């Protein structure tokens, strides 16, 4: 076990998989000579050469297309979007092509590719560069969607993604990228620990209980799972015991784990960084009520980002972005304990 930053865990996963399997290659903007926009692929070009670390023009459609075609031909491309927002010009390649090729050709092809990149709110990146667009991908059959919260999952899920035979949208938490292990350990001991074993992986479709509790279940993914842990700490100080369920992947979606937790706590808060309306948290909330109808003692609460394009100004950005206090307040609403 090492204590790692999220970005280093990602780098480790990529390195291990590229070392292990010659068919894995990276394609994206500034991944090579520039050493990665955020340094993630530093040294890769030198180590793996230009055929496996492909610098591209600013052509996201071309990047995704290159991934799809080479995956169909048996390679395992990892396409980097400098930010996941930039996948939108290539949305057609993702949703109409990568996702549908297997089905519409009657199962004749596999499309084992990963599209990955930092996602979500950064530090005043404003409207076009702050989004967490998982809903746009998780709604599309044929895709898989991973949303790791912790450094361990960043590594373990990325390795699974690369070895998966389907197109995986891999949304990394930009806010978590540089978080120092000490800071994570302060939230919860062990939170920054990453297994060393290069064969250790995290399966898709298995949510994890990040913290056990008995009074209310906090359900989320990516950055917001960490916010839930913070909220659980605050709630503990008020003698409220919160269980935190981190979904890890949205497609496939494991609802058994949150429903099991609900059987214990009878109360749930679903948290999502991005817009609530028609967002992923709606599906979770709906399923909790549909399938956990008799377990629920109070209405499910959703905590989500403000339904606005992200404003630039720091005070507004903070307002638009859900935080631990919002989660605490929602948890208390489920307990009628405001």
């Amino acid at each position, binding site marked *: 076990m090492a204590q790692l930053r999220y970005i280093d865990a990602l780098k480790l996963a990529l390195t291990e998989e590229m070392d292990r399997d010659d068919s894995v*290659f990276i394609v994206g903007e500034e991944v090579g000579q520039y050493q990665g926009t955020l340094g993630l692929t530093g040294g890769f070009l030198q180590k793996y050469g230009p*055929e496996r670390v*492909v610098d*591209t*023009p600013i*052509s*996201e*459609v*071309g990047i*995704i*297309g*290159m*991934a*799809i*075609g*080479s*995956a*169909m*031909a*048996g*390679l395992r*491309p990892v396409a980097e979007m400098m930010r996941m927002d930039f996948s939108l*010009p290539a949305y*057609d*390649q993702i949703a*109409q*092509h990568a996702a549908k*090729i*297997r*089905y*519409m*050709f*009657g*199962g*004749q*092809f*596999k*499309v*084992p590719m990963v599209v990955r990149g930092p996602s979500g709110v950064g530090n005043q990146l404003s409207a076009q560069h702050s989004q967490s667009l998982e809903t746009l991908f998780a709604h599309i*059959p*044929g895709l*898989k969607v991973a949303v790791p919260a912790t450094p361990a999952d960043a590594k373990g899920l990325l390795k699974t993604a690369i070895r998966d*035979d*389907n197109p995986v949208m891999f949304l990394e938490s930009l806010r978590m990228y540089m978080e120092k292990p000490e800071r994570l350990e302060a939230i919860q001991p062990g939170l920054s620990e990453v297994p060393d074993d290069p064969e250790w992986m995290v399966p898709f479709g298995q949510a994890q209980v990040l913290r056990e509790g008995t009074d209310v279940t906090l359900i989320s993914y990516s950055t917001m799972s960490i916010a839930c842990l913070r909220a659980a700490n605050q709630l503990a100080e008020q003698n409220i015991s919160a269980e935190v369920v981190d979904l890890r992947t949205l497609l496939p979606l494991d609802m058994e784990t949150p429903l099991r937790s609900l059987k214990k706590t009878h109360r749930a808060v679903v948290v999502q960084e991005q817009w609530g309306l028609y967002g992923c948290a709606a599906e979770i909330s709906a399923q909790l009520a549909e399938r956990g109808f008799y377990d629920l003692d109070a209405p499910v609460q959703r905590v989500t980002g403000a339904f606005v394009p992200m404003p630039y100004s720091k005070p507004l950005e903070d307002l638009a972005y859900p935080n631990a206090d919002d989660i605490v307040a929602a948890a208390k609403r489920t307990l009628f304990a405001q």
Partner: protein
Amino acid sequence: MAKASAAAAAAPPALDVQKYRRFHEQMVHIREFEETCHRAFQRGGHGINGYVHVYSGEEAIAVGIIGALREDDYFLGHYRDHAYALARGTDPGAVMAEICGKATGTSKGKGGSMHICDAERGFYGGYGIVGGNVPIALGLGKAIRYRGGDQICVCFFGDGSMNQGAFHETLNMCQLYKLPVLWVVENNKYAMGTSIERSHANPDLTDRINSYAMKRECIDGQDVVKLHTRVSEIVKEMRETHEPFFLECDTYRYHGHGAADGPVTQKTYRTREEVEFWRQRDPILILERVLMEQKALSEEERDRIHQEARNAAEAALRFSDESPNPTPDELLKDVYA
């Protein structure tokens, strides 16, 4: 003497009669397949619905180019795709069954007319989004280069595709990385009802490729001998240089854009004279003339081949008609590997 030898050099190389007889047969079979398909759609009741785009008039392209490929090459195309499979030797019954949505179809009936494929034979599929197949070909080219070797990939698409952004991102990257993709635009003068002149500010499609500094050429798409001869050279060169090539094939479609584009809507955008003009340049007629001149085909043979092709197309339809629909459990299969 000198003069004579110069004349000999200028004379076309002796025709590979066997090959072109085979191409002729393929073209006739494709024509009859497409016409059968067209009629079956119009008649109804065969399970065909939605969009069906036939290839009549453009046969020389698929046959001449796919006929220049090796077994391990890749190719893919747009939704006007039956001929790609047929030219490669995919069973016509399976192609027809796909068009009719049957379980015996190439895509188990899940794809339909626009999404024929044959992975085993290197046919990486027909795609329904204009321009959507183009970036995928880039990836196939990448895979070839990645693994080394002298395979190539052919990507077929229509003139309309060249106004999709996807096309431009892709061609630039293809040339940058020198990926061995032969880009083939089937310039049949129209994208649905929109002529080249009304949609390309520079209607010289080959000239547009200057933007990518890619090797390029425009060729007569109706004369399969010329076309195939030149493509064979291009492919040979590509196997050596591993570099891309852009080929514009000058051609025409006889029918409407799709089955829904009937005589009335066609009147909004083209004249009967224009269609007639191109019918005179029919690729099958042109090849038959050559073969007959060379005494490589008799009138009886020709008629027999046409009759066989009709029979084969009807057999394909019959095979499809007798094939079962996909079973309900197929609905949820093949979403994920």
